[in-house]
C-alpha cells in the first residue's frame, strides 16, 4: 500500500511546499480581484519585473543601459557596486509601489465603470508593456538571485526522517504564513484595511461614505506588487531570474479556480491541493500514461471544480438577479 511507503509522504511534503510557491503567486491575483473585481493577467509579469528590479539594484546594473548606450554612444552597464540586499529589497518595494501608482493613473482610472472584460484586456496589454519594459531596463539574461535564503536539502530532516525537503521551500512556507498573517491583520485591524474591505464588498456604498476608490486601488495594487516581489524572490532563487518567470501565473490560475478568486485562505489551500495532487499524480499515474502530467493535471482538477463548485472552495457564490 502506497500510504505506508515513506516515499509517498516525501512526495506529499514536497507537494505541499511546492503548493505554497504557487499560492504566493495566487495571492496577488486574489488581492486585486477582491478589491477591484479585476483579474490581473499581468500578476506573473509583476513577479518577474519585481525580481528583475531587485537583482538590478543588488548587482548595481544601470537601468536601460543598452538603450542609453545606443543613444549616447557610451558603454556603461553598471554603477560599479551594487546595493546591500536589504536596501535593494526596500528600493524594489518602492519601485513596485510607484508602478502600482502608474498603473492606477494610466491604465485603470480612464477605464472606471467599464466592463470587467475591458479591464481584463487592459491587464493583458499591461503584461506585454511591462515585460518589454523589464527587458529594456534590465536585459534578458538569466540572473542568479541570492538574498541569503537557505537552499538545498535540509540535513536535519533527512537525518530524522530520511525525507528530502528543500530549505528554500521551507522558507517560502514560513514567508507565506507571515504574509497571510500580515494581510489578515492589515485588513481586520487597520482603518485602511476596513476601507479596503468596504470597497471589496460594495464599490458604490464605499464611494458614498467618502472612500477614495483611486487611493484604495493604489494601495491594493501596491500590496499585490509587494506580494509579487516575494513570489519573484522565491521563484527567482529557485531557477534564476529570467523571463519564463512570467509564466508562473499559469500555475496560479488552477489554484484560484480551486480556492476561489476572492479568498486569501482559498489561495493557500488551493495551492496546497494542486501541489500535492500534481506530484502524487505524476509519480504514481504519470508513468502509466507517458508522464509530463504536472502542468495539465492542475487544470484538469480545476475543470472538475468548475463543473461542481464554480466559485471554488472558499469563493463567494455570485448570485445575479435579473
Amino acid at each position: 500500500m502506497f500510504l505506508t511507503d515513506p516515499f509517498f509522504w516525501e512526495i506529499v511534503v514536497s507537494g505541499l511546499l511546492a503548493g505554497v510557491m504557487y499560492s504566493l503567486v495566487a495571492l496577488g491575483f486574489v488581492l486585486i480581484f477582491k478589491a477591484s473585481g479585476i483579474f490581473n493577467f499581468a500578476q506573473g509579469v509583476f513577479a518577474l519585473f519585481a525580481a528583475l528590479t531587485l537583482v538590478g539594484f543588488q548587482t548595481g546594473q544601470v537601468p536601460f543601459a543598452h538603450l542609453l548606450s545606443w543613444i549616447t554612444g557610451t558603454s556603461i552597464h553598471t554603477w560599479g557596486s551594487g546595493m546591500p540586499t536589504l536596501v535593494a529589497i526596500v528600493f524594489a518595494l518602492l519601485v513596485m509601489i510607484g508602478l502600482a501608482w502608474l498603473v492606477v493613473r494610466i491604465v485603470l482610472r480612464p477605464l472606471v465603470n467599464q466592463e470587467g472584460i475591458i479591464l481584463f484586456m487592459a491587464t493583458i496589454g499591461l503584461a506585454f508593456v511591462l515585460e518589454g519594459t523589464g527587458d529594456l531596463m534590465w536585459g534578458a539574461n538569466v540572473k542568479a538571485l541570492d538574498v541569503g535564503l537557505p537552499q538545498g536539502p535540509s540535513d536535519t530532516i533527512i537525518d530524522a526522517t530520511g525525507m528530502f525537503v528543500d530549505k528554500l521551500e521551507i522558507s517560502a512556507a514560513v514567508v507565506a504564513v507571515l504574509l497571510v498573517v500580515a494581510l489578515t491583520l492589515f485588513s481586520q485591524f487597520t482603518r485602511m484595511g476596513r476601507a479596503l474591505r468596504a470597497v471589496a464588498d460594495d464599490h458604490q456604498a464605499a464611494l458614498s461614505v467618502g472612500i477614495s476608490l483611486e487611493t484604495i486601488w493604489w494601495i491594493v495594487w501596491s500590496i499585490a506588487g509587494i506580494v509579487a516581489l516575494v513570489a519573484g524572490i522565491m521563484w527567482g532563487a529557485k531557477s534564476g531570474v529570467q523571463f519564463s518567470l512570467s509564466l508562473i501565473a499559469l500555475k496560479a490560475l488552477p489554484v484560484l479556480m480551486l480556492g476561489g478568486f476572492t479568498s486569501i485562505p482559498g489561495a493557500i489551500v488551493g495551492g496546497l491541493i494542486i501541489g500535492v495532487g500534481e506530484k502524487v499524480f505524476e509519480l504514481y499515474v504519470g508513468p502509466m500514461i507517458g508522464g509530463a502530467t504536472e502542468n495539465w493535471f492542475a487544470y484538469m482538477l480545476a475543470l472538475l471544480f468548475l463543473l461542481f463548485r464554480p466559485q471554488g472552495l472558499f469563493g463567494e457564490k455570485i448570485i445575479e438577479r435579473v
Partner: protein
Amino acid sequence: MKFSRLAFAAATALAFATPAAMADLVFPSLDYRTGPYAPNGIPFADGYADYFTLVNERDGGIGGVKARVVPCETEYNTTKGVECYEATKGEGALLYQPLSTGITYQLIPKASADGIPIHSMGYGRTSAANGKVFEWVFNYPGTYWDAASIIVKHIIDQEGGDISGKKIALVYHNSAYGKEPIRTLEELAKKHGYSLTLLPVDHPGQEQKATWLQIRRDRPDYVVMWGWGVMNQVAVQEAVNIRFPMDKFIGVWWSGAETDVLPAGEGAHGYKAITMHGVGMDFPIYADLKTHVYDKGLSAGAGDQHGSVLYNRGMQAAMLAVEAAKTAQAIHGAPNITAAMMRDGMEALEITDEKLTALGLPDFMPTFEVTCANHGGSGLGAIQQWDAKTKTWSLVTDFIASDREVIDPLIAEDSAAYAAEANITPRTCE
C-alpha cells in the same frame, strides 16, 4: 516645403538603394531575443550576426558581395517561426537556420518545395542527414543521435568499458526536440545492456520537483538531459538539491551553456555537456572580431555575450553558412548566388584544418565533408565540463565519433518512412 524636399530626397535615396540591397547575399536569422527562451536565443543570434559583420567589414563580404542578415523574432514559437519564413523568403533568402526543432519540422516540406536550403545545425530532424531523401535539408556537423551515442560512449568510458545493468535516466523537454534521442538511446540500451528511464518535462520546465523526486527514488547511475531554456537551469538546481553527482549528469549541446549552470552557483561544479565546438575566446578570430566589429561599435545586441558557448555556436553556424556560400560561388563561378546554388555549395562543403586555421579558428571543431548522401557531417562531439570556481567550461575529452553501426540503420529507416509518407523518390548519389 522643407518636409516635402526631405521626403522626396528620402524616396529617391530608397529607390536607388533598393537594387543594391537586392544584390546582397541574404541570410535570414530566425532568432529569439524575447520570451522565455531569450537567454539562449540572444547569444546565438549575436554570434551569428557578428560573424557576418566581420566578414563584411574585414573581407568586404563573401566573394566581394556583402552579406545581409535579416532578423525575425520567433520567440522559439513554431507558428511565429513559420510566419518569419514566409515573411523573409521573398527577400532572396539563401538559407534558413531556424534554431528550433519544431520550426525545422514545419519548414522541411515548405523549404523543399520553395527550393531554399535549411541548415539545422545539430538539431531538427535527425534523419535529414540522409541527403538522398532530404535534398534541401542539412544538419552537419552532427545530429541528436550522434550526440546521444557519444554521451553513451563517454559513460561507457567512465565505467571502464561496461555499462550492462546500469541505469540511465533521460530528462527531456516534452517536445519534438526532446523526444529525438529516445529511439537511439533505446537501441543503444539493447546493445549495451543498460536500462533507460524516460522522464518528460513539460514546457517551460519551471517546476520539475516530481521528476527529480523520481530520480532520487530510482537512483539512476547517470542522468542525460535534453533540455532548453529554463528547463536546464531548474534541472541543474534540482540535481544539486538532491545531491546527484554532477559529473554523472550530462546534457546535450543545447543544455550546456553558461546560463544553464550559473544560477545553481557552486553546486553546478562538475556538470557535463556534449559540445560540437571549442569553448572560450582563445581563438585568433576574436582578435579580428575586436578590430573589425567590437571596437567599431558594431557588435550585435548588447555586446556582452562574446566567448560564451552559444555565442561561439552562433558564430559557428554563420561560419559554415559563409563557407558554403564561398563553395557555391566557386562551383558556379558567380559571386551572386541563388538559394539553389547555395544548396550545391552546402552539399560540396569541406571543412579542413587548413581552412579553420585560415579563418582564425584552429582546432575549433572537427573537420568534415558533406556529400550528396551524407548531410549530417562527421557526427563528432566532445564532452565539456563546468568549473564553478572559474565559471568556465573546458573540454575534458577529445572529439569522439558516434556509433555508426547503430545510427546509420536508424537514419535509413526513419528517412525511408518519411520518403514514403511525403511521396519522395530518393535520388541517386554517385
